[in-house]
């Protein structure tokens, strides 16, 4: 759900950005973060808690809380709420601590 009319802000139409989420081709817009693009698509679960595997969405949206960490282009623990969306990104929900090396 995107804002179309606003009394103060203007949201001009922007270029579509296609990316892959959980193996499926989806799209957001230029200027989106990964999390805002997913949210606009109605995708709210970004990760699962490490032990109980409970669904997690973002909480703070400014890179503090770590609830939005996902696997992006093979790299885990990417804070998707502050990471700009780029074309062809491959994004997966993170289900574990993430392994770097």
């Amino acid at each position, binding site marked *: *759900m*995107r*804002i179309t*009319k*606003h*009394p*103060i*802000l203007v*949201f001009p139409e922007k270029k579509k950005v296609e990316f892959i989420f959980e193996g499926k081709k989806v799209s957001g817009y230029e*200027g*989106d*973060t990964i999390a*805002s693009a997913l*949210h*606009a698509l109605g995708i*709210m*679960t*970004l990760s699962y*808690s490490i032990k109980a595997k*409970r*669904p*997690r*969405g*973002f*909480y*703070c*949206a*400014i*890179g*503090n*809380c770590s*609830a939005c960490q996902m696997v992006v282009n093979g790299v885990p623990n*990417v804070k998707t*709420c*502050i*990471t*700009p969306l780029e074309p062809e990104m491959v994004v997966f929900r993170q289900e574990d601590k993430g392994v770097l090396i």
Partner: protein
Amino acid sequence: MRTVELVIVGGGPAGLCAAKLALEAGLEVVIIDRADKLGGQLIKQTHKFFGSKAQYAKMRGIDIAKLLINEIENHQNLEIFTSTTVVGLYPDLVLTIYDQKKYQKIKAKRVIIATGASEKVLAFENSDLPGIYGAGAVQTLMNLYGVLPGKEVLMVGSGNIGLIVTYQLLQAGVKVKAILEAGSTIGGYKVHAAKIRRLGIPIITNTTVSKALGTSKIEAVEIVKLDENWNKISGSEEIIKTDALCLSVGLSPLHQLLSMVGAQVKYISELGGFVARVNDNFESTVKGVYVAGDAVGIEEASAAMMEGYLSGLHVADSLNKPHPEQENLLKYYQDELELLRKGPFGLKTKIGIEKLKVGESNA
């Protein structure tokens, strides 16, 4: 490793104002910010500010951010690192920074920590369900990215942020079902509360959330009445359906880098949590490390700007490069800061600052 005169961690209101006066004083300045643009939380604040001319009263936060950034961004002595996180700060004033690709080290002669704050959470059953957001997160999602948190929202907390974000939700076309307030009175300014009430949004006092309901996302919330000691009154529970729950229950200073560098920090509830002890010049107990803005106690962005200017001046002076208008500006911004703290809301800050000073000699 390169050495710069001043590294400012955080490019929000405090950091930008500190940079402005430090640059004017002739310092070379580096600003590091985790976000992909400067401005901190100002860039989502569509409301007009209160205060006086010094705090850009009547301007919207989004416009204040543009103004503060414009004033400095092309300065020849300034370097800006965005999308970059400071992951280490050491007592010899070496900072380790990470830009998602590589780690680098920078040595500073002075550091100003202007990291701001993080949103507090509330403990209740299922409080981790997707669709439960901090109020600031909702503001970011809507005002920065133009994405709605849901069709209907329930707000928790009637402080100024809760009231302002409620109004902004309404502006974006979201239905706000109610604002819950655990206390017996509305927390924020009357002028904000009146605006909300005129639009027919109930502000329900002595009430909080007892649990969230839903499986993969929030679907409804159970609310409960509280007695005067904030104990739940059993039998008063009620279920409210909602797409999203917005928590506006306060902020905590981001003190982590200060704790890491070994600065003395103390828990002061009036200031929002752990804050570093600073002297009158905003310098922490670690020489050369200064703190300004919400990182040294939760107030409004107006106060953060004043503290930013003051810390910038003090840093310049400590490097024997006082600002051409050093004394006048110090007095001006100090007076403005005092004025901001004169109201009933400022009292809390003043008590906090006094508490922070207690036991200082045991350093």
